[in-house]
């Protein structure tokens, strides 16, 4: 298929293709980070993860409307403010959901699946009632939707760069938070030994609520970010749920590094396969490979061998 092209053309295509893989990696990672915290750290299966993402997207939509109506001169930078709002909004909803639902179900992980599925139905209908059944178009400042020409042939999409930037920022933030901050250490302590953490004076209930809400907040950021590349509608959240869970499980649930590695390998694999095969087959093949690897190595890519 490459016979008709010059080396320079091929080179630039492959450069852009590599970049596509990186964008896909960032998208997958950003989707999965919130879930990696909730599922990986707490063992809660949050089927409403996609709906939290879409809440972030709707908040971005509202913010964009607000700015274009009242503060049009600041429209160019509203997006970053929207992300903060999205985080706050989903964080609060997450805390509320933890308080009203999840905290009663920590001993029954499979039941969290059913309850959060019910929650996702309710949220979908809520969005439909409030925002209408149609998708909403989130208008973005023009500078974000353009591209940057590296050479004549290589054009780098700016929204892709922004997604990568946000992903990098959030990932590092989550890592530092879990490793360095007091709250993060407490959260890890609770994961490792709930009873002991409680005994040494950590308020496990508040740590749980914070951890869950944080995961939801990151989902909100992801949703806000994806308004640049995807659609915002009542049921758009469901598009993400399988990919998200697979990334987390494939990475080895309890490991942040694993999630990164898994998003990277799935992203690159799919991106390369899509280039050489038709889109649907690429997707099927990627999923199949992931499942086969999971069958051979059920603990995921990164997981410590521990005493059981």
């Amino acid at each position, binding site marked *: 298929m490459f016979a008709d092209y010059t080396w320079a053309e091929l080179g630039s295509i492959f450069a852009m293709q590599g970049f596509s893989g990186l964008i896909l990696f960032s998208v997958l990672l950003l989707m999965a980070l919130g879930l990696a915290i909730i599922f990986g750290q707490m063992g809660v299966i949050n089927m409403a993860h996609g709906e939290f993402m879409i809440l972030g997207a709707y908040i971005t939509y509202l913010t964009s409307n607000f700015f274009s109506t009242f503060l049009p001169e600041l429209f160019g930078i509203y997006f970053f403010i929207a992300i903060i709002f999205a985080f706050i909004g989903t964080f609060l909803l997450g805390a509320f959901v933890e308080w009203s639902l999840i905290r009663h179900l920590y001993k029954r992980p499979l039941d969290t699946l059913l309850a959060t599925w019910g929650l996702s139905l309710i949220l979908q209908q809520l969005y439909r009632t409030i925002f209408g059944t149609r998708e909403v178009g989130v208008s973005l400042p023009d500078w974000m939707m353009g591209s940057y020409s590296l050479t004549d042939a290589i054009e780098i999409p700016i929204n892709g760069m922004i997604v990568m930037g946000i992903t990098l920022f959030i990932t590092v933030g989550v890592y530092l938070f879990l490793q360095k901050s007091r709250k993060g250490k407490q959260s890890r302590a609770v994961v490792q030994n709930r009873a002991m953490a409680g005994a040494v004076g950590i308020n496990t209930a508040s740590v749980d609520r914070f951890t869950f809400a944080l995961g939801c907040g990151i989902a909100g950021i992801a949703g806000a970010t994806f308004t640049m590349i995807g659609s915002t509608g009542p049921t758009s959240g469901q598009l993400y749920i399988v990919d998200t869970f697979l990334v987390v499980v494939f990475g080895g649930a309890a490991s942040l590094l694993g999630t990164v590695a898994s998003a990277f390998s799935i992203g690159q694999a799919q991106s390369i396969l899509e280039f050489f095969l038709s889109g649907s087959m690429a997707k099927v093949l990627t999923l199949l490979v992931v499942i086969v690897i999971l069958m051979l190595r059920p603990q995921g890519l990164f997981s*410590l*061998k*521990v*005493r*059981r």
Partner: protein
Amino acid sequence: MYQQKDFVLSVEGLTVSFDGFKAVNDVSFYIEEQEIRVIIGPNGAGKTTILDLICGKTKSTEGSIKFKGKELTKLKEHEIVHAGVGRKFQNPSIYEDLTVFENLELSYPRGKKVFGALTFNRDQEVIDKVNEIAEMIFLEELLLSKASLLSHGQKQWLEIGMLLIQDPELLMLDEPVAGMSVSERKQTAALLQKITKDRSVLVIEHDMHFVEEIADRVTVMHQGKVLSEGSMEHVQSDPKVIEVYLGH
């Protein structure tokens, strides 16, 4: 110092490492027929890990475990059980949702394959055997109660009973009297004396009075290694052991 004579279990050079940490490091010991061996040692010495390795719950990194001349390290858990090794866990591990009768029945050595279990028939032989064991473990009155209703000590006995019904040649008990009252402990000691007549027993225990009461030989472990081995008196007078237990 041992000859290759009638060892039921010979463990040689056994090592397992978790991410570089050697929880059990080059451990060797041998158990004779009808011997009661107790392993003692501080927390984290690798005692439970040794039992895990023997019964196949954890796979060893190096070394061999021979049971009646048969290599166990390559076998799966249920194959090890069929070879004649029974193991009781530290926390009583029973089926809370089933009755005492059903708990014992499930360990009865018949119908262990899928279709065997489907067609398993609760005949008089099974009922008799369950009754016999229940009497031995002081639970004959409670056969029809749900296991979740038993006291902690009774649960420990039930688990021992579940092992007895399999009639293993090597019985491994992880802290069988932990959490028991004084009278329960006495009953348990008597029970152990009774049931060890035809088999070898490997026990992990912290309670020194209890150890003294039952042990033929004692192995002391420390930081994944065997520190000392011999009779209770021998071990108690070993300076290395005193150092570990009292040194800091």
